[in-house]
Structures are given as C-alpha cells and as structure tokens.
C-alpha cells in the first residue's frame, strides 16, 4: 500500500507530496486523491509554482527542435545481402568494417596464439594431446572413470541428502518471497 502524505495546505512545503501535484498536472489521479492535490495547489504557493513549472517544462519539451540527422540510413544492396547472411558471416563482415580497424590486429594475434596453443597441445606428451604415449597420472578417461565415480551406496547417500537439502532451501526461498 503506497504511503500518501497529504499534508494540509499551509504546512511546510517540504512535507507536501510533490508527485501528487505532478500527477494532478497529468490528470492521473483517482477521484479520491484529487481533492487533496487540488487543496495543495490552492493553499501552498510553492506547490502551485511546481504544478505550473512542470506544465511549462512539458510544453517546452514538446517544442524542442529536432537534431539534424548526420547521414542517410537507407540500405545498400550489399547491406541487404549481409543482413540475410549467416550469423558468423555477419559478425565477420562487421569486424571488417573500417571503424573496427583497431581490433583487427588484436583478432589476428588471438587467432595466432590459439593456433600455437592447439599445435602445442597436440604435440606435447603429458598435456592431454592426441600424441601422448602415456596417460598422465590423475587423468581419467571415460572408459576408466575416476574413483569418485565408483561411489558405494553409503558414499552416495550424502550426495542425495545434499540434493534434498538444496530442494528444502529452494522451498524456503519461495516462502520467503
């Protein structure tokens, strides 16, 4: 329930609900709220100034000159073709735009570093690469799962309990909201 501090006219202006006057000027008050707002406007000079000023500002806003457009936004056939291209294609074409020129060396460097990392990853033993002759200790394949995947029934129980707790927390959270 929103708080409405409808102070009587003549009281300190700072305590008057100014939004009420704004809504009065916008004709956005219920019939129950309107008398209090009109009393404020009639009995407090600063409230009357506020209502009048807001109206003048809105009037001036409506008459602001339109800023001039710097360029034509019509689409060229090339842009139209690009718009219907693939998602990756659109990204690549945009990155090729002159205004993003500063990013192009960075992109090339990132690609080069990525390529080097792939080559190193494939070539060095013990790093999980395809040419690793011996599987490194601590690395488990899907065919030979880690000990953590051989839980006994008793080992598994706490995990299920944890899920159960989690569900309980969600329940509390919903109640909290």
């Amino acid at each position: 329930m929103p708080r409405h501090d409808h102070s009587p006219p003549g009281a300190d202006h700072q305590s008057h609900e100014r939004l009420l006057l704004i809504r009065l000027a916008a004709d956005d008050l219920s019939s129950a709220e309107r008398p209090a707002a009109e009393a404020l406007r009639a009995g407090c000079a600063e409230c009357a100034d506020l209502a009048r000023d807001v109206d003048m500002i809105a009037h001036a806003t409506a008459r602001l000159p339109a800023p001039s457009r710097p360029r034509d936004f019509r689409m060229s056939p090339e842009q139209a073709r690009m718009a219907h291209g693939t998602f990756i294609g659109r990204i690549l074409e945009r990155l090729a735009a002159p205004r993003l020129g500063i990013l192009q060396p960075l992109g090339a460097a990132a690609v080069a570093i990525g390529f080097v990392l792939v080559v190193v990853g494939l070539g060095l033993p013990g790093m999980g690469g395809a040419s690793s002759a011996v599987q490194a200790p601590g690395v488990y394949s899907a065919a030979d799962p880690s000990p953590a995947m051989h839980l006994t029934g008793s080992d598994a129980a706490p995990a299920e309990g944890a899920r159960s707790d989690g569900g309980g927390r969600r329940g509390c959270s919903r109640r909290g909201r």
Partner: protein
Amino acid sequence: MDDHARQVADERRVRDRALVAASLAGDLDAFNRLVELYQDYLFALTVRVVNDREAAADAVQEAFFSAYRNLHRFHGDSFRSWITRIALNAATDVLRLRKRRPADPYPEWEDDSWQPPTDEAEGPEHAAMLRSRDRALSAALQKITPDQRAAILLYDIEGYDYQEIAQMQGVSLGTVKSRIHRGRLALRDLLAPQMDLFRD
C-alpha cells in the same frame, strides 16, 4: 486523438503495411522508402536518449538493419511503434556499451551562424531566450535516467500515450507513468534556477 489524427494514423499504417509486404517480397526500394519515412524521427529520438550523435547514428543504423532482418516477424499494428521499440533497444545497448564521453546532441548550437527556427516577428532577443531555454532543457534531460528520458520524449514530443510507451519499453503501464512523473519532478528540480527562461 481527434478524428483527423486517427485518420492520418490509419492511412500511415496501411501505407507501411504495404511497404513491409513489398519489402518481404524482395523489394529493397520499398524498405528504403520506410527508412526515408522514419530516419529523421528515429535519429531525433535516439540522439536525445543516448546524447551522442555518432552512437545514436550507429543505433539507428542497427535498428534498420535489425528491422530488415526480422521483417517477417512484424505482425503488429504499427510499423512506427515497432521500429521505435527496436531503436530504443539499440539505444539501450549503446548506453550499456558506451565508453566515450557524451557529446552535445545539438552541434548546431556550437555554430553561431545556426539559429533554431523561430517566428521572425518575435525578434532576436526572444530567439536567444528560446535558444538558452532549449539548451538548458536538453542538458537537464541528459541528467535524468535514460528510461525516464525516453518515456518523456515519447510522450511529450512524439505524442504516444502511456499504453503505447509501455509496449515500446516492455514495461507495465504503472512503470511508464512512474517514469514520466518522476522524470518531470527531476527535470523541474534541475531547472528550478532557470525557470525564468520558460515563462514566455
């Protein structure tokens, strides 16, 4: 909305739907006719929201680009509202990503040879006063929140009603009203020392 305004809006909708249909059939000229019809309006709105001409131009270009790509998804009543919503989303993205210092959306005001259009009969003093008022108001608009600013611009300048703005901004009617009312109060607080400029 009076009868004449309603009739104009209806005619605009019919025209726009025909242009959308032609665009979907592959007629790029038809889409570019839509661009011609709305680019001034969209740029004026967007530059006031993001307060940066280059960023606003990028947002408008992106909006038309996105509209062209997604034209088949337009099933709404008003292309103008649809493209406005897309442009506001693009402007919001620009505001999130922007690192550059905001620039004056009215570079004309830095050019002494440029004067805003005024009634010749009102004289140079009145024209200077209007110019000062518009600058003060534009600066104050940049100090309220982007959501409040967009809602006020759509309401006061573009003449949309609360419900249309709610659809464009993707929020409830109450949120739009709150943004407009609180934005107006913030503007008045910012402009309180300069209210003499607003008393014609």
